[in-house]
């Protein structure tokens, strides 16, 4: 059977993209919450 490296790259590439996008989404949301809470903390 041929090795079908293209399918292997597609699977690992897709997984890498999905996991990195999810991680970046969490990090961005966390930074946004920190930015929102900082002015409120300064006012108090």
């Amino acid at each position: 059977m041929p090795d079908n490296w293209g399918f292997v790259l597609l699977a690992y590439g897709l997984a890498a993209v999905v996991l990195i996008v999810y991680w970046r989404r969490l990090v961005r949301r966390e930074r946004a919450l920190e930015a929102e809470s900082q002015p409120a903390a300064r006012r108090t």
Partner: protein
Amino acid sequence: MFRVVGGLTLVALAAGLVMAFGVAPREVTQGNVQRIMYLHVPSVWVAYLAFAVVLVASIVYLARRLDGADRLAHASAEVGVLFTGLTIATGSIWGKPTWGTWWTWDARLTSVSILFVMYLGYLLLRGMIEDPDQGARYAAVLGIVAAFNIPLVHFSVYWWRTLHQPPSLMKPGPGTMPGVIVAALMVNFVAFSLLYIYFVAMRVRLLRREAEAAA
């Protein structure tokens, strides 16, 4: 703490890639495309783990009304949906060169799709209900009911005639796989489990901060 777990996860994922591509041998029948297994099987393991955590956390929430248990269930369901989606996608990519088709409605593929849709529904339900207590209560009930699908997915390959092969590892009795393949899988199981812990911990912290910001 987060950085330690994150660093360990990165090291474990790198080790998993080395095991999958550098140590594990080329499979005789399928060729190198079989290396997708080191991604596909740990992904479904994390999905099972995540939904089992949703089940336990949902029971704890209904019994004790602990906000932490609700947040854990929510975070774990989200990560579980992510890894179930990855399982379906990588399985489909693996299926094309080995089965000759991207998709077929056999028992395993159908039951895992139902699992994916049920937990996607769980997340949508949480987003739809404005009252957080009511949303948490309804989600906990759904989190318990949906967990009944996990054994259905796992044992579907025994109960029905399917194109999908039976489990080679998560089954009773002695294993039939060569030790080096089992070792490569184990390293990836550890790496993906660490990634699950890292994502869930991050998501729980985020949910807590969102709740504090909304209060």
